């Protein structure tokens, strides 16, 4: 007799809502927001919104987008998600040059530093690589097939990153594991050589980012987790260099005497491309926490909290360019129950996102008002879906976002009863009735 399994993300939907995501072109040319199955692109240089063109004869996204990303040189853009489609876009003409079908829903994507491989992770914990060799910006790639390169055993992969020198691919999962694998010369044959495991988180790992370090071409890794910490790692050895407790700080700031439980999961991280500043979005923090990474001391410390007043804004995703000093933030979810405005998102920007020199006051990180944002109203109209968002709707959205992030990030702990119930009501068992 076969025993029923509780397999994450297999027969049932673990998660109903998807957070809005934001991605910034490395040269600050485009800003992309995804919300639900909607992909919204704004051309910052042209000051206009972009219409996507899909020549690949495949469908556009039909379900929530879970991962978006620009290639290092900004020529490529990838979007993927619950509809099991991985779409590769020319990030200039915004033509879709290839649509690849994944066997399972896609949870994370990354593009190799040389721009030759797109990697994506599925809900079964398998990372696949797709060869873009012969990629011509104006030509549609046909019959591309992905090859499995590595796997986390049945744990959803939450984040994929390449090391700064491109030598390693780093994968983080919903258990607590971060795996550093050598990205081989022939990735399609598999990334079999594991360089290290970065172990220390006690909850799911939600996000990864890299910090530049002069003597470390691969860079230092920072990771955020449901355990309310941001950690700093040396990926060659896998050693934990420092742990920064951000939860207590965020909880303290939010403390309103209502005694409710604080969810201080780290939602997303973003680093200054040439510096050592780390921005963290945290579950219970209305705003952004900035952390300083001291390379020589190999330490992480809280530098500053930039809070956002007027409307509860807890970012669901962060992004920055390699040149401009703007930190882009978005909040929103794919579906808000009981609300008509289902594709609502809110975009905000912090300027002065860089290491502040002690003698320049004007470069302090500051939250921009809507009329100060690059791209202005036009951008907001495109990316948010509306220029101004009624406060009432917005705070309802914020509540929903909060709930959604909890559900999304906190791994379900099933009680024995629920487990039994789930076993009995599993789809494949039901059919027999």
């Amino acid at each position: 007799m076969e025993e029923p399994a509780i397999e994450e993300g297999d027969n049932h939907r673990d998660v109903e809502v998807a957070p809005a995501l934001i991605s910034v072109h490395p040269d600050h040319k485009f800003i992309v927001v995804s919300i639900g199955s909607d992909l919204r692109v704004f051309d910052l240089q042209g000051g206009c919104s972009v219409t996507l063109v899909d020549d690949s004869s495949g469908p556009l996204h039909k379900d929530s987008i879970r991962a978006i990303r620009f290639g290092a040189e900004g020529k490529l853009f990838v979007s993927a998600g619950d509809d099991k489609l991985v779409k590769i876009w020319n990030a200039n003409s915004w033509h879709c040059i290839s649509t690849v079908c994944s066997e399972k829903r896609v949870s994370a994507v990354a593009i190799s530093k040389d721009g030759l491989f797109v990697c994506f992770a599925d809900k079964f914990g398998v990372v696949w690589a797709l060869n873009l060799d012969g990629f011509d910006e104006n030509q549609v790639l046909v019959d591309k097939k992905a090859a499995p390169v590595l796997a986390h055993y049945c744990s959803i992969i939450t984040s994929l990153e390449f090391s700064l020198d491109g030598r390693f691919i780093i994968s983080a999962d919903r258990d607590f594991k971060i795996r550093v694998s050598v990205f081989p010369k022939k990735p399609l044959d598999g990334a079999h050589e594991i360089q290290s495991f970065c172990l220390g988180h006690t909850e799911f790992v939600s996000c990864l980012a890299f910090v530049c370090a002069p003597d470390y071409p691969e860079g230092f890794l920072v990771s955020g987790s449901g355990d309310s910490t941001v950690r700093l790692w040396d990926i060659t050895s896998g050693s934990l260099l420092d742990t920064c407790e951000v939860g207590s700080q965020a909880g303290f700031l939010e403390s309103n005497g209502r005694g409710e439980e604080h969810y201080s999961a780290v939602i997303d991280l973003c680093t200054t491309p040439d510096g050592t500043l780390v921005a963290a979005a945290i579950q219970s923090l209305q705003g952004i926490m900035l952390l300083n990474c001291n390379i020589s001391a190999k330490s992480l410390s809280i530098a500053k909290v930039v809070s956002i007043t007027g409307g509860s804004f807890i970012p669901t995703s962060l992004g920055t360019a390699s040149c401009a000093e703007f930190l882009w933030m978005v909040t929103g979810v794919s579906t808000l129950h009981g609300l008509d405005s289902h594709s609502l998102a809110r975009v905000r920007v912090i300027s002065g996102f860089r290491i502040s020199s002690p003698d320049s006051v004007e470069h302090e990180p500051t939250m921009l008002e809507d009329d100060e944002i690059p791209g202005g109203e036009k951008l907001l109209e495109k990316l948010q879906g509306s220029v101004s968002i009624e406060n009432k709707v917005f705070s309802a959205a914020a509540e929903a976002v909060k709930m959604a992030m909890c559900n999304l990030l906190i791994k379900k702990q099933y009680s024995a009863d629920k487990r039994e119930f789930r076993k009995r009501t599993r789809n494949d068992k039901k059919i027999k009735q």
Partner: protein
Amino acid sequence: MLEKEGHSKISKSTHLPRKRFYRARAHSNPLSDSHFPVPISPSHVDYSVHFPQLFSSSDEGGDSKKIEFADVGCGFGGLLISLSTLFPETLMIGMEIRDKVTEYVKERILALRVANPGQYQNVSVVRTNSMKYIPNYFGKGQLSKMFFLFPDPHFKEKNHRRRVISTHLLDEYAYVLGIGGIIYTITDVEELGDWMKDCLEGHPMFEAITEAELEGDPVVKLLSSATEEGQKVARNGGQTFQAVYRRIAPSL
């Protein structure tokens, strides 16, 4: 109050735990999330719990001796018991997902330690899902031998990913094995035997060990004789299929 012999889980005559009090489900699903403690990292494995005579609780990992052999899916522990006296200087551990079976092995080791003072101090067992948590127990290159004896076959193709040997899991085994380390597999299911051999043969970090070398390795003889499953197969006159491979450096 002392329990009467009839109810005691320990047999009075042999001082060994009785298997019938530790009966469990025949198979476990390695994909379902069970609740047992998992060490955060290999440095969090408390050696004083596993090897109390060799480590005091104040020992902080560091440069002290590490576990070198892992018997994955050790079942009732027959192999470990044989290895313990064959390699008295080597620390070894069994990994088993079934709670009751793990308890049985624990009791078995404790009883052997009592009955044979000074012996069996180098062997222990832990309840865990080896498919998920091997990197939490062993660091890079820490192991010199890994055993996979008579693993569950998971016949259906859709369940092949539950097999303990797969290309992806071999990546992790290659990580915890030092260069030159050996992986031993054996099964009485021909199809699984072929599968394990194919996975190992196709992996860039493993190479087959020659017949001549196998002859000289005292451990090879134990594969089919030392474990409960092996003995069962032997009693029924079943055929076995083994694949023994060495961890090598990947060619660049």
